């Protein structure tokens, strides 16, 4: 039963190998890809239930007991994000298959897609700092290939800046891990959390901020976010939706995990709150200045990351629980918004606000899919963003974080403004000339499924919030994590 925790990494890797073998047969690749993603989602949801009822699953890979060997740790936070991510992976894959004229038809898309899924799963499950680095490399290398796959001209150049930033961040992460290994003598996170208590506080704080910095580049925190709005919108829609939903959130997960386990703080971290506030504000202001749906949404990715960091920076159970709820909501909502944006481009031929009008008349389905997701992003009650933001603000009240609460509320209003700009510019108005191209049902169904998952999060908010509180309790208690991991005898 414990070995089931390795399946989320193994299933996509086997599928990637199978898809590579069948490079010349697109139909086989599609079957392999969708089967693997469905299996991944099923296993992840099963893990979610099993971990919550029966406790954390720890696997000592290769039979080497931690702290010597590599441990996979499926705790509440990891499996919750894994389950959400696997649903997004499945929906985006179905969308990509249904979309006409995409990179999916070029060989290799399905293999790389599954490798990305394996990287995401490994990053979430690993209990080892160096394996976390390797998982990030697997995930990012796959993302480099997906971003540059079928592109040409200008987008190759923009993708290059994404790759260069990714490489610099990886080198810094490696350096940070090397320095941590030099002072603590281990890379097992459970072991580290005990050993880092013994080193001088100044050194410890420096290492903590270094890890925050490198994961901050991956998560696109102010002032390290400039690469994101330049590179994401250029990719094909399914790829952008996947990156928007998953990649930055894995950066946030790494920050949550390392800061709570390795560098816990007794109270709110002011510097982190400042970064959170600036990330929210600068992101949303950038979004307001844009005129293209995908670019607007890309700036909103940055802005919303600020909310997650805000929840962490409070360093209370309530704050971290709120950050977890918000991250789950973001994975679902961001992916569905990009998928809708892609369908607008597909049917109208462009995603620029000025040149598209009256989509609500021409394709009412798109409007009905966009509306709940957009209102949810803005935090409008009763949608899922409201649940997350309410929890964050309640957590802020508890620690008297008035300034950050004020900033987050203003940013919410600006987000709503920016969403009404898309709504007014694209969906309302006199329908622009030209008949829209019909949209395949295979694109609408996965998008609708994600929007419905978002609504379910809002309606079933109470179980999710309670689950997130249990997960946050686990995170705030490094001693329990140590007992889980170091207590394993294989």
């Amino acid at each position, binding site marked *: 039963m414990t070995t089931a925790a390795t399946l989320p990494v193994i299933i996509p890797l086997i599928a990637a190998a199978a898809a590579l073998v069948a490079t010349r047969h697109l139909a086989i690749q599609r079957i392999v890809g969708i089967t693997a993603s469905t299996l991944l989602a099923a296993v992840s949801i099963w893990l979610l239930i099993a971990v919550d009822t029966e406790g954390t699953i720890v696997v000592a890979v290769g039979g080497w007991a931690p702290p010597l060997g590599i441990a996979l740790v499926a705790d509440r936070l990891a499996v919750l994000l894994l389950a959400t991510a696997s649903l997004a992976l499945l929906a985006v894959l179905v969308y990509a298959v249904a979309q006409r004229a995409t990179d999916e038809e070029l060989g290799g898309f399905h293999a790389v897609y599954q490798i990305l899924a394996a990287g995401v799963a490994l990053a979430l499950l690993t209990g080892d700092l*160096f394996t976390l*680095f*390797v998982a990030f*490399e697997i995930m990012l*290398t796959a993302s*480099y*290939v997906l971003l*540059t796959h079928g592109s*040409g*001209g*200008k987008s*190759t*150049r923009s*993708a*290059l*800046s994404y*790759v*260069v930033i990714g*490489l*610099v961040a*990886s*080198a*810094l992460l*490696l*350096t940070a*891990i*090397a*320095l941590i*290994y*030099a002072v603590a003598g281990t*890379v097992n996170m459970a072991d580290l959390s005990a050993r880092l208590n013994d080193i001088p506080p100044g050194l410890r704080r420096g290492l903590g901020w270094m890890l925050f910095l490198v994961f901050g580049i991956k998560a696109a925190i102010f002032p390290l976010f400039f690469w994101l*709005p*330049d590179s994401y919108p250029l990719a094909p829609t399914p790829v952008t939706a996947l990156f928007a939903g998953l990649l930055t959130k894995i950066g946030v997960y790494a920050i949550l995990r390392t800061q709570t386990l390795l560098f816990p703080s007794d109270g709110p971290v002011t510097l982190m709150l400042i970064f959170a506030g600036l990330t929210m504000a600068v992101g949303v202001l950038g979004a307001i*200045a844009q005129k293209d749906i995908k*670019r607007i949404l890309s700036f909103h990715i940055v802005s919303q990351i600020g909310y997650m960091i805000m929840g962490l920076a409070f360093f209370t159970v309530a704050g971290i629980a709120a950050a977890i709820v918000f991250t789950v909501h973001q994975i679902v909502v961001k992916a569905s918004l990009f998928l809708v944006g892609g369908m607008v481009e597909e049917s109208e031929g462009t995603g620029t606000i000025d040149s598209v009008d009256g989509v609500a008349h021409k394709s009412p389905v798109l409007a009905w899919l966009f509306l709940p997701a957009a209102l949810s992003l803005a935090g409008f009650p009763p949608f899922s963003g409201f649940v997350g933001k309410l929890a964050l603000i309640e957590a802020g009240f508890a620690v008297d974080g008035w300034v950050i609460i004020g900033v987050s509320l203003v940013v919410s209003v600006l987000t709503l403004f920016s969403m009404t700009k898309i709504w007014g510019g694209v969906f309302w108005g006199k329908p622009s000339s030209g008949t829209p191209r019909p949209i395949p049902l295979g694109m609408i169904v996965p998008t609708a499924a994600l929007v419905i998952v978002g609504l379910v999060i809002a309606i079933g908010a109470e179980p999710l919030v309670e689950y997130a509180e249990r997960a946050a309790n686990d995170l705030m208690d490094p001693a329990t994590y140590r007992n889980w991991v170091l207590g394993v005898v294989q």
Partner: protein
Amino acid sequence: MSWIIAVTAGLLFATGTYLILQRLLSRIIVGLGLIAHGANLVLLGSGGDPGSPPIVDATAPPAGYSDPLEQALVLTAIVITFGITAFLLALAYRSWTEMGSDEVEDDAEDRRIADLGTHRS
């Protein structure tokens, strides 16, 4: 960590950073390679002083062994760097065949916003 390794890693980071800030893509890639080497060197140095081969001998005191772990880690890191550098070179070659130059020009969006500012003033 021996001071020679520390100084060399610092030099590699400094040279790499300088090269990354250049306009030519080929220099940026060389710079990235140097920074990655610097990181690998720091990782190699993180295991402490050299010692006798880490082959377990129950009679010898544990203090004299060199640390085998960071060598395994750095091998992994070198392989990853190698793969990604190769990918980046291929990408740069494609960019060169498509654009006909190796120079990284200004970002179009930044240029547009900067122009908005100059027209107003």
